[in-house]
């Protein structure tokens, strides 16, 4: 199912041209230009305020650039390909009062999916129990983030945009998530992970993208900080 949809390794899936985003006087992104290929796991790193979250939100279509353009899967209108995008952020994007299964059932509906089995599979994939009736609000942070990831995966998107998925998550859960991300990348997905915990992705990420002050200042294969002038 996934293979026929995946792009051959190497074809640029996401192109960002002169992407600029300003909030009044604050420039979150300044003319970022880059291409990202398919079948890759990208780790986006940098200090607070570097523009990582803004970049991800621009890719997700949640924020409109002040200048510049984003091209995803050949389309300049992110909304047109949004069914191929999965988004996750530090807040869980889940309803605290519902169980995991109920949450996924609802969000699956938004993608036109009315299949309980798929929901259960997505939950199992993140190593959680689909039968758990406990409301998500009572989960530990690790469980909540994993459930949020399941939500982002429910519609089997080609591209995953994950903003601080490991934040406040216990090491065990985090390692599980990384393993899952690796297997998804191997199966043909393209994954962008914004994180402060770069060490978690060492060995898993294909490329480390370093951002500072609203610009990409370096891209490396290995986890070594880029010298910034």
């Amino acid at each position, binding site marked *: 199912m996934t293979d026929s949809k995946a792009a051959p390794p190497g074809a640029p899936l996401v192109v960002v041209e002169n992407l*600029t985003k*300003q*909030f*009044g*006087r*604050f*420039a979150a992104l*300044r*003319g970022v230009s880059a291409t990202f290929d398919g079948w890759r796991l990208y780790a986006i790193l940098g200090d607070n*305020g570097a523009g990582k979250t803004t970049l991800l939100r621009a890719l997700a279509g949640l924020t409109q650039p002040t200048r510049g353009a984003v091209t995803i899967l050949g389309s300049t209108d992110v909304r047109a390909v949004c069914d191929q995008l999965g988004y996750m952020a530090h807040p869980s994007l889940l309803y605290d009062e519902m169980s995991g299964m109920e949450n996924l059932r609802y969000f699956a509906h938004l993608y036109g999916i009315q299949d309980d089995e798929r929901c259960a599979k997505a939950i199992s994939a993140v190593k959680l129990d689909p039968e758990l009736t406990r409301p998500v609000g009572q989960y530990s942070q690790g469980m909540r983030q994993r459930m949020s990831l399941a939500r982002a995966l429910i519609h089997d998107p080609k591209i995953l945009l994950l903003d601080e998925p490991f934040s406040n998550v216990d090491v065990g859960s985090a390692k599980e998530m990384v393993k899952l991300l690796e297997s998804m990348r191997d199966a043909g997905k393209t994954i962008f992970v914004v994180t402060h915990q770069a060490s978690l992705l060492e060995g898993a990420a294909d490329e480390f993208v370093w951002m500072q*002050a*609203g610009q990409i200042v370096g891209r490396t294969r290995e986890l070594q900080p880029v010298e910034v002038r």
Partner: protein
Amino acid sequence: MKKAFPIFALLTLVLLSYALYEALVAAPTEQTMGDVQRIFYYHVPSAWTAFLLFLVNFVASVVYLVNRSDKADMVALVTAEVGVVFCTVVLVTGPIWARPVWGIWWTWDLRLTLTLVLWLIYVSYLMLRRFSSGSQTPVMAAVLAVFGALDVPLVYFSIWYFRTQHPSPVIGRGGSLDPRMARVLLINWAAFLCFAVLICWSRYRLERLKREVEETQALEALLEPRGVR
């Protein structure tokens, strides 16, 4: 363009003075109401001017929603502010006129009530502009203006029917208007219109300057390297 403003200002001043003279001195005294009636020459033109300004606001708001033009947003802002001022004039002169003539401060007559509702809608418009955060303000305000404009005919009909069910004194003139009075009315309206255009123009220039400064500051922030914030 620069020269035109002071010339227009002077013309407006002349016209206003002439209109004032006509209204207070030259116009014939009304039979039953006496000199108090002269307030009519302020009450009615203010109302017409306010309605016209709000109409321009509606058009500018629609234009903004269609092509997100900054100019349209500024026109909308300016006409709303000046419109509210003229509306206030109507609402103040109405009771001042009504009390000595009809013995009541207020009556829910068609014009006065419509003016009050418009005043309320546009004050809420100005409050929305003040309370929303910078980048969203133009869109939100434009949407509210559309709602307000669509409301106006409904307000009109509801009050009109209400008045047929519960008749009450009408603040204004029943019957036909003496041609000499009509002339004075029109002169005053012309003067008020010029005055409105003058103020709008002035406010528009002020707003444009303010936005130019903000844009320059934003551009500066974009270009300069960011240090410690």
